[in-house]
C-alpha cells in the first residue's frame, strides 16, 4: 500500500499551509478536516475476528504482516528502517492517519507526482520508492497482491470513488511568522528524544526498529511526502507523542516538524542529472513547505546520505 508515501502524498495534497503562495500537489481533493477517530462518523473497517478463514483471508493476513513489519516480510523492497504502520497508525485503520480503507477506493487516480493516472498498485509502489527508500515491488507480484488484498478487505463496504472523512492527517495551520528550528529542537529534546533518540536515530529491539528513525540513512528519503514540513506537522499533531495525539500546540507541531525535516536523509530517487537545484525546481519548489535544496545552518540540504 501506499503506506507512508500514500499518507504523505495525501497529506501534501491537502495542505495549503502557506496560504496562497504554495501550490499543493494532487491532494487538493482530499478532505483535511479533523475529528475524533473513535466517532461513528468515520467509516468502520471490519474487525480482525471477521476475517474469513480461507485462502483470501490468508492473503489479507500476509498483507497485514507486510504492513506492520515491512522489513521482515518484504525485505527486497525496503531500503530503510521503517514500516508502513509507522505512519499509518493502528495498522492502517486509524481515521485521520491515512487509513487504507479511505485510500483503496480512490484509485485509479491522477497524480501530479508522476503526471499520470495511477493504479492502486502503482500508488503502493510509490510508497516503497519514497517512504521506504526502497524499490517498487512488481505490480503483479506477491507483495502488491497481499497489500492490495489487505487494503481491499479494510475497505469492505466503503463506497468507491467517494472521498471518506478521515482520509488524511488533518491540516495544521502554519504559525504566524513561520516555523522556528531552535524552538523545534527544544520540543524534540523534551518530547521526542525519549523514543526516537537524541539524534533522530530511532531505537531497536534486536535488529529491528521499534521506534522509527526520523532522519539519516535509515529514514524516509527526500521524495517521501513526509519530507514536507506541513505534512509532518499534521502527522505529528494528530499522532505524537504516541497515545497523546492532539496535545501538542499547533506551533510546536510545526516547529518540531521543521526541525526533523531540517536534517539530511536519503536522496530523492527522482534526482535530475545529479543536481539538487534542478530536482528542487522540478519536484520540490511547489510541493508544500520543504527544505530540499535550501541552506540550513550554512549547509545545503538535499545532498542525500
Amino acid at each position, binding site marked *: 500500500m501506499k503506506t507512508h508515501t500514500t499518507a504523505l502524498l495525501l497529506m501534501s495534497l491537502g495542505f495549503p499551509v502557506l496560504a496562497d503562495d504554495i501550490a499543493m500537489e494532487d491532494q487538493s481533493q482530499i478532505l483535511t478536516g479533523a475529528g475524533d*477517530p*473513535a466517532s461513528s462518523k468515520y467509516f468502520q473497517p471490519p474487525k*480482525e475476528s471477521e476475517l474469513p478463514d480461507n485462502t483470501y483471508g490468508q492473503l489479507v*493476513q500476509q498483507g*497485514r*504482516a507486510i504492513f*506492520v*513489519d515491512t522489513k*521482515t*516480510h518484504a525485505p527486497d523492497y525496503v531500503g530503510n528502517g521503517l514500516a508502513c*504502520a509507522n505512519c499509518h*497508525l*493502528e*495498522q492502517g*485503520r*486509524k481515521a485521520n492517519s491515512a487509513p487504507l480503507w479511505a485510500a483503496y477506493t480512490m484509485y485509479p487516480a491522477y497524480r501530479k507526482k508522476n503526471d499520470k493516472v495511477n493504479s492502486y498498485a502503482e500508488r503502493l509502489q510509490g510508497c516503497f520508492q519514497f517512504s521506504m527508500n526502497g524499490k517498487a515491488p512488481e505490480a503483479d507480484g506477491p507483495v502488491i497482491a497481499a497489500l492490495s488484498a489487505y487494503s481491499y478487505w479494510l475497505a469492505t463496504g466503503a463506497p468507491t470513488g467517494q472521498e471518506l472523512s478521515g482520509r488524511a492527517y488533518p491540516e495544521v495551520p502554519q504559525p504566524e511568522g513561520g516555523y522556528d528550528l531552535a524552538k523545534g529542537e527544544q520540543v524534540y529534546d*523534551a*518530547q521526542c528524544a*525519549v*523514543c526516537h533518540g537524541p539524534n533522530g536515530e530511532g*531505537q*531497536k*529491539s*534486536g535488529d*529491528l526498529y*521499534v*521506534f522509527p528513525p526520523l532522519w539519516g540513512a535509515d529514514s524516509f528519503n527526500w521524495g517521501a511526502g513526509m519530507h514536507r514540513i506541513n505534512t509532518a506537522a499534521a502527522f505529528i499533531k494528530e499522532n505524537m*507523542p*504516541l*497515545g*497523546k*495525539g492532539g496535545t501538542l500546540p499547533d506551533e510546536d507541531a510545526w516547529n518540531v516538524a521543521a526541525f526533523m525535516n531540517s536534517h539530511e536523509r536519503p536522496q530523492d530517487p527522482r534526482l535530475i542529472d545529479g543536481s539538487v537545484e534542478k530536482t528542487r525546481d522540478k519536484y520540490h519548489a511547489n510541493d508544500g513547505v520543504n527544505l530540499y535544496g535550501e541552506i540550513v545552518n550554512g549547509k545545503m540540504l538535499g545532498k542525500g546520505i
Partner: protein
Amino acid sequence: MNVPLWPLAGLFLAISVSAHAADAAAVYSKGGTNPAAMACATCHGAEGEGMAAAGFPRLAGLSANYMRKQLADFASGARANPIMQPIAAALSHEEADAVSTMLADKPQPQVERIDRTALVDGPGESLALSGAWDRNIPECVACHGPSGTGVGDAFPPLAGQSAQYLSSQLTAWRQGTRKNDPNDLMGQIARSLTEDEVTAVSTYFAGLTDKGAAK
C-alpha cells in the same frame, strides 16, 4: 609461569577495585554500608529474579539506567513505595550505581518473539498487539518492543515480570500514585484502561515464555 604470584595479583586487583567502586554482589546479597540499605536479595531473589507471589519485581536484565533512575526516584520520593524509599535513600550513589550495573548484566528470560504480525487471541493479547485506538491506547509492543522485552532505558521489559507486579504498577499509574514515567506516557495510557484490561494485559505478559503466550 610463576604460579604463586597470580592469586596475589588478583587480590591486589580486588582491593584496588573496591577502593573505587562498591562491591555490587555484596550490596545485593548483604546490603549496603548503611544498615538501612537492606540486602536486595531478601525480596528480589538470589539472582534478581524477583518474587512473583509477593509482587517484588524481577531486576535481572533490566536496563542499568532504568534501575538507576528508579533508585534515584525512590530516594527523592518521585516514586513512592514504603519499602523501597528508605532502602534507596540509604544506598550510596556508588552502591546504587554498582548494583544497577551488575543486575543489568544478568540474563533476561527467553521468550518467543511475538509482534504485531501475530493473530490476537483474547483481550490481553489484543491490547498488547493491537491497542485500543478508539480510546487512543497504543499497543504495548509499540513502546515495550516485541513480546514486551523492553526498549532502551525508558521502556522496561514486561515479559519476565509477574502479573502481580505489572498490575500493581498499572493500577498505581491509573490512580496517580506512580507518576515517574517520562512525559506521563504510561500514566496517560493507564488512566484509559479498565480494571479488567489491567488484569488481562498483566496476565498476558506474565505468561509469555519461550513457547509463546500462555493459553
